[in-house]
């Protein structure tokens, strides 16, 4: 649980000369892990289109695919691929997405602390590629280490750390910690505790699970606000 955090702390101490003791998997993907998946996608799309055109009338145009648009958007916004750095980049490229909003896109940050279901872990440039499922908790973004800090409460979601020192967080809902109302949180926690208490012993699993989720989210909001 805390082993990755521990290894991060160890790495921080050796950051001074920007030399890395560990060989991260970044080296393995130096010739472009992304490129290979992009090429794979293109190949698969072509195979599908071959089958597709067998059944399609000749007047029908070719369909498009989301990976094509993703590549286009990346090209438009990213000013081309960054050259695979020899070693690890200085800053982590951090993307924070909600279904209805983009909180941050290609932000350069130093450290991000994520609440995974198995425990909190921090991500710095050169972190081993990870996929994590998030629990209701606080995401802390250190734009400048210990200087510029932003905290968001997330309800749940997923986090991916890629070999090219970029991290993506897809959350279902996220709010700034300052925007949480302590009164509402206290009231909500009391309500869901009561609901859970009253449902105990009755058979409906769905309702019990819903009440448990409510209790979990509200108590984590409670502890995040320090109440």
């Amino acid at each position: 649980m805390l082993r990755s955090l521990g290894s991060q702390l160890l790495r921080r101490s050796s950051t001074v000369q920007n030399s890395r003791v560990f060989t991260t998997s970044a080296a393995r993907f130096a010739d472009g892990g992304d490129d290979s998946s992009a090429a794979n996608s293109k190949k698969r799309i072509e195979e599908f289109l071959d089958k597709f055109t067998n059944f399609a009338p000749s007047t029908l145009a070719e369909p498009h695919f989301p990976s094509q648009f993703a590549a286009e958007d990346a090209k438009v916004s990213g000013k081309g691929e960054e050259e695979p750095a020899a070693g690890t980049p200085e800053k982590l490229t951090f993307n924070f997405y909600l279904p209805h909003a983009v909180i941050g896109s290609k932000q350069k940050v130093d450290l991000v602390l994520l609440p995974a279901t198995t425990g909190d872990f921090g991500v710095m440039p050169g972190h081993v590629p990870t996929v994590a499922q998030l629990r209701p908790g606080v995401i802390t973004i250190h734009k400048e280490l210990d200087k510029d800090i932003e905290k968001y409460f997330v309800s749940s979601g997923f986090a991916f750390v890629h070999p090219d020192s970029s991290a993506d967080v897809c959350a279902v809902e996220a709010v700034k910690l300052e925007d949480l109302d302590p009164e509402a949180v206290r009231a909500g926690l009391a309500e869901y505790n009561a609901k859970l208490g009253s449902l105990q012993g009755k058979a409906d699993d769905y309702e019990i699970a819903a009440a448990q989720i409510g209790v979990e989210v509200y108590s984590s909001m409670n502890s995040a606000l320090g109440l």
Partner: protein
Amino acid sequence: LWAGLHDRHCPHSAPLLRVKRRKRRFNRRDIMLRRAANTLGRQRLGDLAQSVLARDAVAAGESSIVMIRNDPAQGIRYATLQEVKLRMRSVQNIGKITSAMKMVAASKMRLAQLATENSRGITYPILKLLGDHPGADVEKNIAVAITSDKGLCGGINSTVCKFARVTSDTTGTDDGKSSTLVVIGEKGRAQLVRDRRESIVATIQEVGKVKMTFSQASGVAEELMKTEFDVARVIYNRFKSAIAYKPTIATVLSPDALEKEMALGGTLDSYEFEGPDRAEFLQDLSEFQLAVVLFNGMLENNCSEQASRMAAMESSTKNAKEMLSKLTLTYNRTRQAAITTELTEIISGAAALEK
């Protein structure tokens, strides 16, 4: 011009007026006017006097049979002034309605565009991690067609339905049975139920009627999970600009299908899993991806629908204006001809009497 207000050359316009084929009762006055107008150019005065006499006879009730001369065929109907005026008024009203609809669609599109662009971001990380596998070869495929509930929106719904049909054929079983369809939206249902009734397993309507939210998309995703698909292909119109949209197929794999594809070459093995074990994680991720893809697809389709409606109403308004100007010319011409014939009759009658 008389058969219906439909511009055959514009793909966007729809028939604006349905002409009722009612039994036409000829007004005696019209007939006399028309005959007078016809006889003017072609006959000598004598005949004109005859026709005038014939009209008087009819008016006096002596003769109830009116001979229509110079009418080449039975089927030609000449509209009266009043009919032309009625038609002009209705075309003008239609022009006003379509112009209002166009402005409403333009403002809705602007709002929808913002929401759409915000919803695109969350699809990229999952795509980057899992990749795009449209051609995954599995047993149970479903094609989800996202269409609109309301009409008068141009060709977007027929486009999606065409692609849905072809996708369901392409991913069907080897013995020729097409894969199942799920239709979101009333217009798609109406089109697909005509030839793909047995393939449709569910239809979902009035999504986003009030506001499109992620919880609605999650609800739809939950319904789709009940079909226990291996691969779901979501077909929608991706919004490109106010005049362009691109039919897109987004693929969502179930965990088993994903493992199969990953075995063929994928980078998922190099990632460490923080959280539940791999199988449970992939299950959750697949459900999340489905909800996210549906949410994005529905928003994009909604935005494309508004843009398409804007274009359709714009061309309808233009057609209505053209039609109105043509009708106005016809009206004026007919009115002036009627006045001229009246005058001519009177004058020639007076001249004949003088003689």
